[in-house]
């Protein structure tokens, strides 16, 4: 087996089909970039879930004098109401689910509000008694939010029970949908990449049909005949895959770390190390698909 011959053939094939090869490179590049982006989104969602689900709490808002009458017919929640709620949280039915809880009265709620909206003019118009007194409940398993919601909804003196996790789930479902869309686009593009590779290989084989005919006539092995074509497809796709890996790293470095992380400082974003894990995976996907498509294409061409 002469490597010189094989690489000579590969080089000639690539040169002869330069426009097709460029389109293979571009299509694999774009499709794998989409695959990489979808993977980044999923990793980001995973990381955010870990972080935020850990901090998500259930808020039991007590009635204040400003609460709407239908929820709070008795007006401001009495001390009895607070004792009853606290007793229920310590009770053996709920206690196993509750990791800890704490109570914020009007003034504490106002202090927290002012801190959260420090630079916002809304603080000027809000007074302490407008803010609900609240029991913040942290659960051992954040998925158990419904238990607290059911236990306290409609209880006298409780205006509303709100599970912060439901907000997070909304955000995550949006992110999930985005990554699914990316995967959808990527699979359509990967499919067209496969078709493009098969067409290119067939064309390349056709332009070398005299050589192929003689090679078969004099008894060159199938492996020897097919290998240059397979390498041709794989090389083109490998270039695209490497570009896609670079694009994913660039997205992580310049968009996620450079822009998002600066804009949203309290969120833990995926870093370059995560991006680096994706690069060989994208490369493997590209090379495998191209190799597969090329082998099928050249085998079918030679059989026909």
């Amino acid at each position, binding site marked *: 087996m*002469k490597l010189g*011959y094989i690489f000579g053939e590969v080089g000639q094939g690539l040169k002869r089909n330069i426009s097709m090869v460029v389109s293979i490179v571009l299509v694999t590049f774009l499709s794998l970039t989409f695959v990489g982006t979808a993977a980044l989104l999923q990793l980001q969602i995973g990381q955010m879930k870990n972080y935020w689900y850990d901090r998500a709490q259930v808020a039991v808002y007590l009635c204040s004098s400003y609460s709407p009458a239908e929820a709070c017919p008795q007006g401001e929640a009495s001390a009895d109401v607070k004792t009853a709620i606290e007793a229920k949280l310590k009770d053996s039915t709920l206690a196993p689910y509750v990791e800890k809880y704490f109570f914020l009265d009007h003034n504490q709620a106002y202090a927290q509000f002012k801190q959260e909206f420090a630079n916002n003019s809304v603080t000027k118009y809000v007074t302490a008694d407008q803010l609900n007194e609240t029991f913040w409940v942290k659960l051992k398993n954040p998925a158990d939010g419904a238990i607290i919601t059911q236990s306290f909804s409609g209880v006298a003196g409780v205006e509303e029970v709100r599970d912060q996790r439901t907000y997070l789930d909304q955000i995550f479902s949006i992110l999930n949908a985005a990554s699914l869309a990316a995967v959808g686009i990527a699979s359509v593009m990967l499919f067209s990449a496969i078709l493009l590779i098969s067409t290119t290989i067939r064309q390349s084989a056709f332009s070398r049909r*005299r050589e192929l005919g*003689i*090679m078969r*006539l*004099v*008894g060159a*092995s199938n492996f*020897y005949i097919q290998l240059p074509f397979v390498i041709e497809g794989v090389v083109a796709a490998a270039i695209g895959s490497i570009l896609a890996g670079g694009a994913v790293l660039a997205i992580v470095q310049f968009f996620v770390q450079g822009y998002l992380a600066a804009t949203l400082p309290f969120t833990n974003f995926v870093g370059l190390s995560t991006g680096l894990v994706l690069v060989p995976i994208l490369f493997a996907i590209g090379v495998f698909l191209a190799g597969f498509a090329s082998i099928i294409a050249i085998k079918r061409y030679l059989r026909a």
Partner: protein
Amino acid sequence: MAMISIEKVSKTYKGSTRPALDAVSIEIETGDFVFLVGASGSGKSSLLRMMLREDVPSKGSIFVLGENLISIPARRVPYFRRNIGMVFQDFRLLPNKTVAQNVAFCLEVIGKSPSFIAEAVPAVLKLVGLDGKQDRYPNELSGGEQQRVALARAIVNKPQLLLADEPTGNLDPATSQEIVNLLERISAAGTTVVMATHDRGIVDRLKRRVVVLKDGQIVSDSRGVGYETAEAAR
């Protein structure tokens, strides 16, 4: 065992009702020189294609060089073909390679070493009378010279069997005679030669074994006679 043993081979191509070969049986011994004659479409080329295992019969059995060509696995076919040389009416040379490169190409692709190629190519070019022309391109050669290159390529790997499908079909009588003289020398060196032709002159002069095909059937198989005699013998 005979070098080629064909029994009741039939072949019907798709979209055709008339068989290209119809229950053909023939044995060819090692060292034989056999002419396959007959009109166009009589099945000469089909028979040669079967011997090279370019095609598989619809019915019957065919053994060449001890290989059962019905059951040979696809991956063994290339190795089987390395023992067979073949030339065609249209030469089938690579136009972008020189004479020497055309011959060397078929050794390269079966994995022969550069040193073997460096020795074998000049030797075979000398044998076919092309020494000095190794650096010419096919379009710079006459038809007879091109067929010599094709012959050189077919025999450079010292095959046991040489198949020739109308090798003189594109050549004038004098040049044809030179090519046939070459085939005789190759045959004399021990290679079995099967040549399809409808060149009466050659068949008549050589007085070899003549197998006449008509409509896919063998109508006569005689030794040491000319074309006319063979035709008349049926």
